[in-house]
């Protein structure tokens, strides 16, 4: 039993007692507060208490609140109607029982109209109570769902940030820096600057931004300079950039991500290393970027991972008409990105 359950048991008990007391007062105000009145008032109190406890237990057990809205209202209404019917029957049977044992004089039986009046009265009282707590509960659940959605989104953003920061790269760079400080101070100082540039750029860009190819290539240069310190002669870079494309626009970090993947899946996994080539040229009205690395495409497509899906997702969201492909070539893999200008 949770704390909310306990709280409900308490309030629901008070509700039953309050309803019974209301009826006692009602009878008293008409000056007919006899044994029969006490029996009727108690039966009403107990009846609505049982009806409303059952109602809530059912709603909880069968997860009615998951459906929400119309379905929930319909079910609660049906339960209120049958709860009121149950309460009326309980009152009637207790009164007859008391009369049978001669405790009370039941007097003339109420006619059908009166009976409906009593029943409708209970429906209203039980309905109001149900609406009150069910409303509170729905509101509470909606708040919870909102909070959960918010925390899910934060977790996703954190994952994305982690991917942007590329921890493996950063810590390797810092480790290399420690050695480089002893070996070549000037170069170490330059690497600190380049690493700062890379980190700042990874943190700064926004989802809707665009950059020029020249700007993006500057980032890639910083990144590759740091990776050259790590891989040394294993990483050989070839650039072939058409001058007239330097002002072409593209989403930030896509080219960078393609280069990172070329290193991660190509250079890092090839013992002798190899050539990473970056080319950009015009293809009709499109900017066409090709990155090749000496790696191999995994045989099973399920392993073509997160990075690929991320790139496709990014261009689909921000750049209609853009295309990304990955294919095996003579001795390596080529990633190709086409962006309409």
């Amino acid at each position, binding site marked *: 039993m949770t704390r909310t359950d306990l709280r409900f048991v308490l309030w629901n008990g008070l509700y039953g007692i309050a309803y019974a007391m209301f009826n006692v007062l009602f009878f008293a105000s008409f000056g007919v507060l006899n044994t029969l009145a006490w029996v009727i008032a108690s039966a009403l109190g107990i009846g609505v208490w049982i009806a409303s406890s059952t109602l809530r237990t059912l709603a909880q057990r069968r997860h009615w609140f998951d459906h929400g809205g119309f379905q929930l209202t319909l079910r609660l209404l049906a339960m209120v109607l049958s709860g009121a019917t149950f309460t009326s029957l309980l009152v009637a049977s207790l009164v007859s029982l008391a009369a049978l044992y001669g405790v009370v004089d039941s007097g003339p039986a109420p006619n059908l109209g009166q009976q409906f009046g009593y029943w409708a009265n209970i429906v209203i009282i039980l309905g109001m109570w149900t609406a009150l707590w069910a409303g509170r509960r729905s509101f509470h659940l909606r708040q919870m769902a909102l909070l959960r959605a918010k925390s899910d989104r934060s977790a996703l953003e954190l994952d994305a940030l982690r991917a942007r920061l590329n*921890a493996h790269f*950063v810590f390797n760079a810092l480790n290399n820096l420690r050695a480089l400080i002893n070996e070549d101070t000037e170069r170490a100082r330059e690497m600190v600057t380049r690493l700062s540039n890379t980190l700042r750029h990874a943190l700064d860009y926004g989802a809707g931004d665009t950059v020029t190819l020249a700007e993006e290539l500057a980032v890639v240069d910083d990144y590759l300079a740091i990776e050259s310190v790590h891989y040394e002669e294993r990483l050989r870079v070839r650039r072939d950039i058409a001058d007239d494309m330097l002002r072409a626009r593209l989403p930030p970090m896509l080219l960078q991500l393609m280069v990172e993947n070329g290193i991660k899946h190509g250079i*890092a996994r090839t013992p002798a290393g190899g050539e990473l080539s970056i080319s950009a040229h015009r293809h009709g009205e499109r900017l066409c970027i090709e990155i090749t690395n000496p790696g191999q495409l995994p045989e099973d497509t399920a392993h073509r991972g997160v990075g690929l899906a991320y790139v496709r997702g990014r261009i689909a969201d921000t750049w209609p008409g853009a295309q990304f492909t990955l294919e095996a070539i003579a001795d390596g893999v080529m990633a190709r990105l086409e962006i309409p200008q």
Partner: protein
Amino acid sequence: MSVRTFIVDDTRLARQEMGTLLAAHADIHVVGEADDVPAARSTIEALRPDLVMLDIQMPSGTGFDVLDGLSYAPFVIFTTAYDQFALKAFELNALDYLVKPVVPERLANALSRVRERLEKRVFDPAKPTAVLGANDHVFLRDGERCWFVALAEISHIVVDGNSAAVHFRNQKAMLTRSLSTLEARLDPALFFRANRKTLVSLSMIKAIDLAVGDGYELTLKNGSIVEVSRRQARELRERLAL
């Protein structure tokens, strides 16, 4: 006591940095280094160091691939830049690993643990005919999972064709070595060949019952039952009489 140490890392600067850090410890002698799995295996096998500083990710495989191919288990301190997942494969208490850039105090702690264990060691990798003692470790691997296991934790070893199943801590791992090469490296005071297929740790025997013929039936502490052939029964009597 000097600790003969070997460095494995695919990056020259990382090896150099590790060398610089180790130079602060007078008893650590770096005997060599390697930049990839095959080179690491062959050089370690030739130099037989006491300790290996082992990078987890390399171009042609992992640090576990290096250990898997060795004929003995050196002490190992793993190093990694950022690899939350690789180490999960490793289920052992004795594992030491350092993240790069390495904090000198952490390295010092890891090295003192190595020195402690070096004191208790019977096995000396530098001697070609060395045998393994109860506190010495072997490296076991079964698919994705890896362990360093002390001989004292092994209950028995069952051979099946070219591979041997090592039973320890209620688990089992396959070794791709024949029983005779294995037997040659185990201290004969610790293990007993119960039959053609099985080596049993003497300290793991709980009960000995007579079996049909002149053989015995051994019940081990983990509940396994091993038959002792008639030929070996006599030897067992002699061993236990000692």
